[in-house]
Structures are given as structure tokens and as C-alpha cells.
């Protein structure tokens, strides 16, 4: 593995995760927010796979695999929600979908 330490993989994962967090917090476009959620999931996956390699046990990969399954389902349902959002409100801006309040 050259001179790369396990720690560095975790740093990369953490950084990607943070970028995802910032994206979810700051972007208004629902689709982009959704992509940022995918980023966070992927960051978690990288962390899992890296830990898995570090421990030398492939259970972490199975975990990552399951995360992908969930992500796939999430995307299917989420995009369907976005489609119906656009159909009903004609917008992709998250702030236009704020009727659920006091």
C-alpha cells in the first residue's frame, strides 16, 4: 500500500463527507441537495471499506454494499418525489416547499 496510511483514507472520507454536509446546508436546488446526500453516503462507504482493509476482514465491504442498496432505493424514491414536486409546484427550490410549518 505504498506509504499511504489508513488514516489518510479516513481523512479523504471525512473531507468528502464535510463537503456533502456543506452542500446539503447551503444549496437550494433539491436535486443538488440530493446529490450531496449521495456524497455523504459515499464518504461513509469509503470509510467503511478503508476500515475493512485495515482490519483485514471483508465485512466492512458488505456493509458498504448494503449502503449502496439503500442508496439506490433512496434515489429511486427521492427522484420520484422530486418529479412530483416539480409537477405540483413547478419548482426545484427547497424553500418553495415549506408549507409544512406553523
Amino acid at each position, binding site marked *: *500500500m505504498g506509504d*499511504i*496510511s489508513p488514516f*489518510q*483514507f479516513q*481523512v*479523504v472520507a*471525512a473531507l*468528502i463527507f*464535510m*463537503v*456533502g*454536509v*456543506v*452542500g446539503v*446546508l*447551503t*444549496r*437550494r*436546488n433539491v*436535486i*443538488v441537495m440530493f*446529490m*450531496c446526500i*449521495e*456524497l455523504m453516503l*459515499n464518504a461513509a*462507504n*469509503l470509510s467503511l*471499506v*478503508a476500515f*475493512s*482493509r485495515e*482490519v*483485514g476482514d*471483508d*465485512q466492512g*465491504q*458488505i456493509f*458498504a*454494499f*448494503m449502503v*449502496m*442498496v*439503500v442508496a*439506490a*432505493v*433512496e*434515489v*429511486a*424514491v427521492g*427522484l*420520484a*418525489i*422530486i*418529479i*412530483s414536486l*416539480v409537477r405540483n409546484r413547478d419548482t*426545484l*427550490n427547497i424553500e418553495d416547499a415549506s408549507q409544512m410549518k406553523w
Partner: protein
Amino acid sequence: MRTALFWILSVAALAGSIGVVGNVRNPINSALNLVVTMLALAGLYVLLEAQFVGLIQVMVYAGAIVVLFLFVIMLLNLRGSGTAGAEVQPLVKIAGTAVVAISAFFLLRVLSTGRAPWPDVDPSYGTTRAIGEALYTDYVLAVQVAGVLLLAGILAAVVLAKKRLD
């Protein structure tokens, strides 16, 4: 070789993710940046000897999920309707960044303590056969549940996206 690959892939992944967030002009650009991140991550997986996960990453994320994003973006044809990040309340922005920084600090602090070097792994580590055997023996329930979840997801997507006929 591996070191160089690691740096190239890591930088690509990070750049891609920043591109996803920072590209305020057009969601398609965000999606393309997302593809870059996904592919780079797949490379990192292969670097970690998790070939199967890496390939699945390409197939599922790059090949299906992001294509689906693109498909929806094109279907809705809302070119350039993404709103700029500057519209966010400054309070949220500042507080969010602060929280991220703090938690990252703690996270990294924890992670930086007592790292063991890479262990040697079995040649079968991460191969399709090893993962498949684990999935269909120890984790067979998880696989079944995942199947049910996928079915539920399909149904939900169909019901949600279908045009109401009434």
C-alpha cells in the same frame, strides 16, 4: 505507483465533490462532477483491494444512480433553475461550517490515535467469490431484506411518479 494513484484519485474525488456543491449554474454540471467523484472512489476501493465493491460502485453509482439524476434533470428540463448558494441565511452558513469544522476536528483527533499499519490479507480478500459467499451465508437475511427494500422502493417510485389519471 499506489501512492501516486492514491493522491490522484483522492484529489479527483475531492475536486469532484467540491464541484458538486460549488457548481451553482447548472445541476447537470453537478451531476457530472458527481460522476467524477464516484469513479475516483471506485478507484480508491480497488486500491484498497475491494475490487468487487469498486466495480459495483461503478455499476450502481456511476452507471445507474447518476444516470438517473441526469435523466430526471433532463426530463424536467429545468436548465439553470438552480439557485445560488448565496441565498442561504448567513447564520446557517456560518454555524454549519463551524459545526462541520468542530466535528471534523474531533473526528480526526479520534482517528489519529493509535493507527495500526495495513495487515496482510488473504488473496481471496475482496474477490467476488469471497463477498458472494459471505452475502449468501452469513448475511443472507440482510440480502433478503435488501431485496424487499428494493421492491418497496420500486413500488414507491412507480406510485409517486405516475401521473394521476383521475
